[in-house]
């Protein structure tokens, strides 16, 4: 073989060894993530060498924390993480599905089937399953006022797999309200308009939705008010600091006097900008009880802060770039890039602005706004890893609500879809496939069952009992899912267990693609490291 000539140290694994290596890697990854799945899964606490703690039940986070080295495992992990990036959930399911497809294939291959037939069967089964999903999904009418109940059910299904019930249910309302708050008719939902802010403080059930914005910084002048009502909000991106580097770029000074003059001239320009803002403040606020708050993306130096404080203005500097957009959506007005032509129309409005200090961290709450199109989910937790885990769950919850609104459909959960799809594949699709491709369809159908099986296993139930009773229900024509408390079949519709349509579709789509690619690998070449040894 040519590679041997080029590099005598290169290691070559032949067909069956190569296949078993990839299959084992896929199964290994499946084993790691298996216990994550469902509302009865196990949460994982990862403790690093220096005592750092990470807490996660999210397949996506876990994959990123693992130092995966095996090339097959990396390929699967990348697919699974891509799944998360595009639809926000389903990482664990993807890994399980790919692992199970490989496991089912292994059995057929050991009995002498060529991987090619399996791959053909997968393709047929995949297409049929996607068609079946179209029929099986439950349409949701969104319209102008979406059905809050169904959105809540979807969010709750996701959240309950990440957080314990009381907390999950509390967050469900917050999340649904947050998405409905930022939703604009006829426009795609931009989840970035929901700010997720956290405070290390007290216990986690304090998490709440702020209609308005919470900024993670405060004013930097001792004389500025810490609390103000009826506030005009000026959102701007204007440098209010004296910038020496600008002088550097062009001028040289020959003596100290000239230098002073130059500095004074520079300073004057900044002061003029500040004065224009103060002018506007006087115009809109004088004689009333209204206040004026400026939130700037650029810096504000102490002399400017001084001027503003004397004029009774609250000023915040170096706001997040994204908050410029959020502020305008929350308070109204517009983000200005220059202080020329300032008018009252540029200003937003908030009923209450106040500062909250925790140690060295300051938070500014901008609340009681009119018609907000941006809001903040404020997470409170006693320590960093708890906060991080809630944050992950909130992100997943937000995505699930957004997906539902955009899909205008949901899919019955608790394993109901998988059992139904398998029945469909075996009853109707298998015989349409030619010859040995039927084996591929069958393997695909069996692999689908990994979801209800794992759910049952994680709940401590007997897998086979559960699968048999679920299949019986489906044979009688009722759609049933798994009750993870008792193991009995239940109607997911009644229980309000719904999964995202797009997530399911994505899993069905990407799983077989990766599995097929891996099955068709018939030679693995690696130069440099011995891959038979465990890494």
């Amino acid at each position, binding site marked *: 073989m040519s590679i041997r000539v080029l590099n005598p140290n290169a290691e070559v694994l032949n067909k069956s060894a190569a296949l078993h290596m990839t299959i084992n890697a896929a199964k290994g990854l499946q084993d790691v993530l298996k216990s994550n799945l469902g509302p009865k899964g196990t*949460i994982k606490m990862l403790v690093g060498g220096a005592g750092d703690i990470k807490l996660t*039940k999210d397949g996506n986070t876990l*994959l990123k924390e693992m130092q995966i080295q095996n090339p097959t495992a990396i390929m699967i992990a990348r697919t699974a993480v891509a799944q998360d990036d595009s639809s926000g959930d389903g990482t664990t399911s993807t890994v399980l599905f790919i692992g199970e497809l490989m496991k089912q294939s292994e059995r057929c291959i050991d009995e002498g089937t060529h991987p090619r037939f399996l791959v053909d069967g997968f393709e047929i089964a995949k297409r049929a399953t996607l068609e079946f999903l179209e029929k099986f999904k439950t349409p949701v009418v969104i319209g102008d006022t979406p059905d809050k109940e169904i959105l809540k059910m979807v969010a709750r299904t996701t959240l309950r797999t990440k957080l314990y019930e009381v907390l999950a249910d509390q967050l469900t309302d917050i999340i649904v309200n947050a998405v409905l708050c930022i939703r604009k008719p006829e426009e795609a939902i931009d989840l970035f308009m929901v700010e997720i802010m956290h405070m290390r403080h007290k216990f986690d059930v304090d998490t709440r939705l702020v209609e308005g914005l919470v900024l993670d910084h405060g004013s930097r002048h001792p004389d500025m008010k810490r609390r103000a009502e009826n506030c005009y909000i000026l959102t701007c991106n204007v440098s209010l600091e004296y910038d020496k580097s600008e002088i550097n770029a062009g001028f040289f000074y020959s003596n100290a006097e000239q230098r002073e003059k130059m500095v004074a001239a520079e300073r004057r320009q900044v002061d003029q900008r500040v004065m224009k803002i103060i002018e506007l403040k006087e115009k809109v606020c004088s004689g009333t009880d209204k206040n004026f708050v400026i939130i700037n993306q650029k810096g504000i130096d102490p002399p400017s802060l001084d001027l503003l404080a004397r004029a009774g203005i609250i000023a915040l500097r170096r706001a997040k770039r994204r908050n410029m957009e959020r502020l305008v959506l929350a308070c109204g007005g517009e983000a200005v890039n220059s202080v020329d032509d300032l008018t009252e129309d540029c200003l937003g409005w908030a009923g209450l602005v106040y500062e909250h200090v925790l140690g060295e961290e300051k938070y500014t709450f901008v609340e009681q706004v009119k018609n907000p199109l941006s809001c903040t989910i404020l997470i409170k937790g006693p320590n960093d890893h708890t906060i991080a885990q809630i944050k992950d769950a909130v992100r997943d919850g937000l995505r699930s609500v957004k997906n539902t609104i955009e899909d205008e459909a949901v899919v019955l959960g608790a394993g109901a879809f998988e059992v139904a799809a398998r029945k469909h594949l075996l009853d109707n699709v298998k015989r349409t496939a030619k010859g040995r491709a039927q084996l591929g369809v069958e393997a695909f159908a069996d692999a689908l069952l990994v979801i209800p099986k794992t759910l049952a296993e994680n709940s401590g139930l007997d897998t086979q009992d559960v699968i048999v009773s679920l299949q019986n229900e489906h044979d009688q024509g009722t759609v049933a899912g798994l009750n993870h408390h008792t193991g009995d079949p239940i109607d997911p519709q009644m229980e309000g267990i719904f999964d995202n349509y797009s997530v399911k579709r994505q899993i069905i789509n990407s799983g077989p693609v990766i599995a097929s690619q891996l099955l068709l690998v018939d030679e693995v070449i690696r130069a440099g490291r011995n891959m038979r040894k465990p890494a």
Partner: protein
Amino acid sequence: MREIVTIQVGDFANYIGSHFWNFQDELLGLAEDDTADPIFKNNCMDMDVLYRTGLSHQGAYTYCPRLISIGSQGSLGTLSSSGSLYGDSSSSDASDTLTWKGAVTKLAEKPHEKNLFLKSLSEEGEDDPNIEDKDRVQCLERDVKFWSDFSKVHFHSKSLYELNGTWTDFQNFDNFGVGKEVLSGGFHMEELNDRLRFFVEECDHVQGIQCMVDDSGGFSGVASEFLENIADDYTNIPVLLYSVRDTFSYTDATNQRKLIARSLHDAVSLSKLSTYSSLIVPVGLPSLGGLAPSLCVRDEKNFHSSAVYASAIHSISAPFRFKPAGPISSTTYAAGSLDIGEIIHILAGQRQNMVAILDVSMPAPSLSVSDKANPGGILNSFHALGTEIGDDSEDLYMDESLIFNGALYSGADRASVSQVKDSICNVYDKGLRPKPRPSHLSISLTPIPIPLPFPSIFPTSTSRRGEILADQPLVGPPKGSLEVESVPVMTRLRSSIAIKPFIESRYNNLLRHGMLRGAKGADLLRDWGFGKDEVDDMGEYLSKMLRIFNPSSEMTSDSD
């Protein structure tokens, strides 16, 4: 006050940073120590430029570097990523999980054991009479696995960032493409931006960002993505960038493919990093043997080489934080205050060159000795810390900035500011060296203090104050922090035609391997996520950097 925010990206950058912050910590300690050399009491350095005052959750005041350090996952060793000051009330007891009532699996990595030095910092083992400082120094000489092994600084909880999800082992995190990809997900970037904002927001007037980047692998990709964001968000803040590499990055590539990958990496990295910074200083030699006999550095130890680079970077940064001088203090202890913007401006000069060479003389010779023995010799003691450096003796447009920390006059006597000034001006006045026109000289009387965890790299003939004693034997065990208290260090940043070969070789490599028709590395660049246009832009950028050294630049740029 003009604050500086420091950013360190990559493992070797963190090694250098660790030494750098040890110097700062030592200076802070010495300034309060009544038994210390009085020169450290009046060091006229404003440490607030680099440090910030904070308040922990427990209500205790903290004083931490204004720093963001990015490293690969697991590179922190025994150091917790949230630092030790902002104590987390968390326990690693699985039953304390508040968010999940179901089962909890705990997967714990084996805790790293603290070495003798780190133990002496924490309470444990402090009072153990059997362990002396000698043992601590020796244990560091024997074994340093992580940069945190020899760090004595407390970091802020937002300072240390571990990059997870790279899914490559360290060996494969070796090119610009992988690094770029890691940050492309957006999550890391958002977190990094938030952390940087935290440090910048509280500054009244940032003078600049000082950034050290391990340029030998994926981290230069990480840094360039981060710097691009910084350039967008903070348009007027100058960025002084040290692109550093350890001696290992110069080992020969094993095959041609790797060779091409590496040369393309170097080219892309230079082009990208210089796009998003104001001044770039390449630092890193294949071997530090050239610094002998004044230093004896073991090349195979990053702990050693990083100490030399850190000393130079520390010395350069001294004039950025001279206290705004009253008339008296300026003349007696320090002179020649600069800020980052100014030094960049001086070095850019007429040509607008933005790649500078770092030279160091450590320990710097005593003024009287070098004046007598070898006129002009004081400036001949410099060693360049970069590679591929040409000759600039004929360069008329050379600009330089020289910084002298803690010069000795003769023996152990410290020189005064005017003595240093005279001595250096003498060299130019006598025409021993063509004087670059707007040359800048900064003088600080404070030498570089040698903290306990500094490696033993001084030759036997070094005295306590870092003077090379002529009457001492040349051979013998190297001296370290226990024998040497401080050393005088002279550094110079120079912007001259000598950097041309450095840029030229990178430009040619990009041309040969990435841009010409049928170039072998074209696919590789595509894998790294660069379209053809972008590669052409990079080539154009590098050629522009080269063109400024061409005397007839105007004409050639028009003709093509």
